[in-house]
């Protein structure tokens, strides 16, 4: 009798370790500027606009089949850093044979996590994507130099963040997808940079209306590159 209950509990425990078969859906992000893959400036170049830093949080990855949500990544926080090639690709662990036609994700960090204290991994404030004087993640960071820019050393710095009304900068991206194993997503910075007059707007360093306005332009930078 005792042995039977022990066996029963062991089986129950074994159940806990059962995992449905999964497969890897590989995601690759390809930042580009001026019709070419983004090359971060090391200084000294002569182009009118040089990009020195591009970092951004992507979070809350979901897959949809039609209007039906079929997959949610748990603990879904990814820091993309153009200077760290490894950070530009990762995979979602999805059930095998899953049908889906759309991928959704957020640019930035949700408000619950924003107010949830210290986290590790990509959310660790060591990565320089957390404001220190006022709580909050920097959702998107773009820095560089432009000849048009009147600031010291011609620098422009856009640190977009803010998680509280009316300066909430979190944005959603929805992309139609066909690929089952790999999805390549282009991040084209041209449109964003050409829409800004760097002679007057070159600094955003706190949650404000300008940050919200620029954040709203971000989803349009993302598009599907190619698939297989």
């Amino acid at each position, binding site marked *: 009798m005792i042995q039977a209950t*022990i066996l029963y509990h*062991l089986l129950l425990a074994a159940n806990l370790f059962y995992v449905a078969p999964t497969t890897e859906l590989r995601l690759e992000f390809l930042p580009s500027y001026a019709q070419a893959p983004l090359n971060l400036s090391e200084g000294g170049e002569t182009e009118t606009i040089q990009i020195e830093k591009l970092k951004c949080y992507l979070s809350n990855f979901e897959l949809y089949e039609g209007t039906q949500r079929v997959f949610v990544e748990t603990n879904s926080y990814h820091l993309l850093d153009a200077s760290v090639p490894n950070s530009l690709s990762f995979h979602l662990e999805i059930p095998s044979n899953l049908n889906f036609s759309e991928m959704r994700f957020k640019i930035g960090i949700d408000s619950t996590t924003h107010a*949830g*204290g*210290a986290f590790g991994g990509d959310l660790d*404030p060591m990565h*320089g994507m*957390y404001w220190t004087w006022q709580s909050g993640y920097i959702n998107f960071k773009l820095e560089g130099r432009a000849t048009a820019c009147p600031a010291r050393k011609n620098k422009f710095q856009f640190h977009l963040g803010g998680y509280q009304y009316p300066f909430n900068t979190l944005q959603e991206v929805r992309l139609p997808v066909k690929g089952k194993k790999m999805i390549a997503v282009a991040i084209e910075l041209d449109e964003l940079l050409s829409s800004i007059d760097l002679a007057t707007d070159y600094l955003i360093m706190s949650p404000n209306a300008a940050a919200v306005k620029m954040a709203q332009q971000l989803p349009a930078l993302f598009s599907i590159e190619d698939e297989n």
Partner: protein
Amino acid sequence: MKIKLSLLWICLFVIAGFYVGDQYDLLYPNYFPAPAYDFTKNSLTKEKVALGRALFYDPKLSKDNTISCASCHSPYNGFAHTDHDLSHGINDQIGTRNAPALFNLAWQKSFMWDGAINHLDMQALAPISHPKEMNESIASIAQKLQAEVKYPPFFLRAFGDRVITGERILKALSQFQLTLVSAGAKYDQVKKGTASFSSQEANGYRLFQANCNSCHVEPLFSSYAFASNGLAIDTTLNDFGKGAITKKARDQLLFKIPSLRNLSYTYPYMHDGRFRKLRSVLKHYTEGIVPHTNLAPRLQKGITLSVREQTDLIAFLLTLNDKEFVFNADHQFPKSFFFPKEGLED
């Protein structure tokens, strides 16, 4: 029998896997409300509290290794910067606000005089990164500590491996600060029935409840909400408090209501340390309130207290001094960590 034994092993393995140290029980009186801090995400252990204590006293957390948290938050002053109206940081630079006392932080929902910080874990980033305070970065601190002989084994004991991350430094600092509970004042003994107020203190208590308790709510002596108590703007600082953070008109000139525990140790008072004496504070509330749109409604008619009543009120405020807390050796500089060879007890 065999099955039972192997089950025992499995259990032991599981427990060992989850072992992250000796649980630390946070003690506080039953008349305190439930803490606001979510301990499920950072449960207290003796090892992490000890690590946080070492970090709190370690000047390695500043750029030139000269300033520790305790430089501005001294244990003997209820962890305030007594005798400094505005705090001093690296290279003797002067900040713009008075360093607040640190206790009962587990009951606070937002931090700093203006509420700029939304979680205790993230607070330390502010002084660490501030150019006039410690002028460091959390990433560089993690590197510095990783290269030390003392710290990696300490992180191993606290977190299960030697890796030093921003998250771990911040959580350990929170743990130590969460243990700073002040609940041993005469007021608390009266609450527990082990002491009683003198008639002067009892009268002061009555006056306190009638005039101050709406903001400085018992038993923590603050609601930790934001309010304006009618201080005139110091035009050399032009500090608009919460309004500068939220950019909302209705938040202009609001500051966090501070606790009134341990006042004898934490002078000078207010966000800019403008008053050195409790007498001056009461003079402000009775004669000095400057009206403006965001002045708390409670104070719009001012507070009337005779000189005699003010004396009684101060007598009551002094019963909120918690010697037990201020002189608690468990919160002080951990000598045995910094100077192990001296063989001193900490």
